[in-house]
């Protein structure tokens, strides 16, 4: 079987910043120190009013081509992961192909996943390479969740930020993509959802309510049942890690670095302790961008490379989990 590798990764964060001072002005019972201590997040980037998923996807792809000497004519497939597409249709990946001036011979598709999206994107790309359908795949994650977050929803405004990433997956590169463990449990669909705007519930004006924690709830905006999501990850992620290690014939201690979906610091610390991962092997990158959904793993990977936490010979285990519920993990061998 042809092996699949990551060749390069870049990411992009929008210019506007929402910091903890601003959040504590909007929600006076949330002090700046408390927000940073509990979530590990100091600021989030917010897409401009006129900046959308395709814009961020184009920006980050151009950055990837320029910084890594990639000839865009060599790319033969675009995979774009988003839950905030510019339109219901057409496919955002098609818009991106045109705006990047890429070959009309490329395959292009969007796939709708959140926090597990980057891992699934790598799995799809590896499959395309193994089946000789494509040789150079541009995997983009691009998400403008903040456009779906109600101004009065303290919890979600604190956690989420916008961002995008671009990765080239090819027949050679800096790290080999290992074997995958993937999972799904749609029974949790209602716990992280935007109810309105699809065919079932078109967008409409609805009465807002306040939940027991003081967050404004509106079915046209993002809803997250934090405790239920926490409970799900606490049960699903430890066995995900076991399975990824087993499939890659590795042990907990033979992994050099763990890069999990950067949900929030509280949840990550809990998972790390529960699984028994040494703190020195657990990478955190939340401070400057918060939870950017499908982009957290590539953003963290890029920064771990810049920080010299990833070098030749490093085994990195990546794991994504969240909305769906959906989860997945693999090992990257540098």
């Amino acid at each position, binding site marked *: 079987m042809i092996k699949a590798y990551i060749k390069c990764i870049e990411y992009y964060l929008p210019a506007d910043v929402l910091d903890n001072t601003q959040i504590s002005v909007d929600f006076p019972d949330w002090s700046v120190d408390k927000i940073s201590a509990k979530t590990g997040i100091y600021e989030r980037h917010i897409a401009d009013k006129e900046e959308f998923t395709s814009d961020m996807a184009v920006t980050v792809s151009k950055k990837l081509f320029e910084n890594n000497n990639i000839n865009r004519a060599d790319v033969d497939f675009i995979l774009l992961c988003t839950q905030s597409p510019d339109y219901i249709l057409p496919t955002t990946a098609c818009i991106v192909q045109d705006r990047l001036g890429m070959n009309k011979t490329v395959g292009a598709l969007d796939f709708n996943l959140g926090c597990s999206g980057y891992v699934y994107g790598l799995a799809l790309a590896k499959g395309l390479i193994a089946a000789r359908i494509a040789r150079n795949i541009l995997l983009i994650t691009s998400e403008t969740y903040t456009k779906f977050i109600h101004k009065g929803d303290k919890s979600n405004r604190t956690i989420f930020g916008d961002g995008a990433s671009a990765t080239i997956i090819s027949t050679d590169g800096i790290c080999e993509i290992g074997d995958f463990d993937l999972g799904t449990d749609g029974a949790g669909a209602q716990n992280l959802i935007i109810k309105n705007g699809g065919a079932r519930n078109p967008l409409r004006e609805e009465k807002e309510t306040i939940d*027991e924690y003081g967050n404004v709830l509106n079915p046209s905006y993002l809803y997250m049942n*934090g*405790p239920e999501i926490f409970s799900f990850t606490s049960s699903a992620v430890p066995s995900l890690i076991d399975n990824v290690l087993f499939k890659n014939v590795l042990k907990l201690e033979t992994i050099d670095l763990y890069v999990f979906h950067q949900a929030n610091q509280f949840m990550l610390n809990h998972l790390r302790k529960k699984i028994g991962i040494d703190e020195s092997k657990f990478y955190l990158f939340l401070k400057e961008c918060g939870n950017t959904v499908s982009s957290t793993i590539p953003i963290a990977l890029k920064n771990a490379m810049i920080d010299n936490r990833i070098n030749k010979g490093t085994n990195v285990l990546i794991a994504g989990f969240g909305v769906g519920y959906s989860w997945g993990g693999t090992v990257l061998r540098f």
Partner: protein
Amino acid sequence: MVDKDLFLAGFRDLFDETDPQEIQFETQYKDLEEWSSLTVLSLIVHFEDNYKVKLSPVNIQESSTVDDLYKLIV
């Protein structure tokens, strides 16, 4: 069998700003000003780490006093 006073002390520790004396067995914990979804997460972890009890968010929703929570571990 978990000592009742220790249980109460452990529960009080989940709060940073609330006066411990404000939290008693009959306290309706969801009425505490500091109660938040993050407290719920801390409570789930606290039960798992200290009492080996897997508390679900529904358990917490359905209980109302600190004593109700204590009954979940005895």
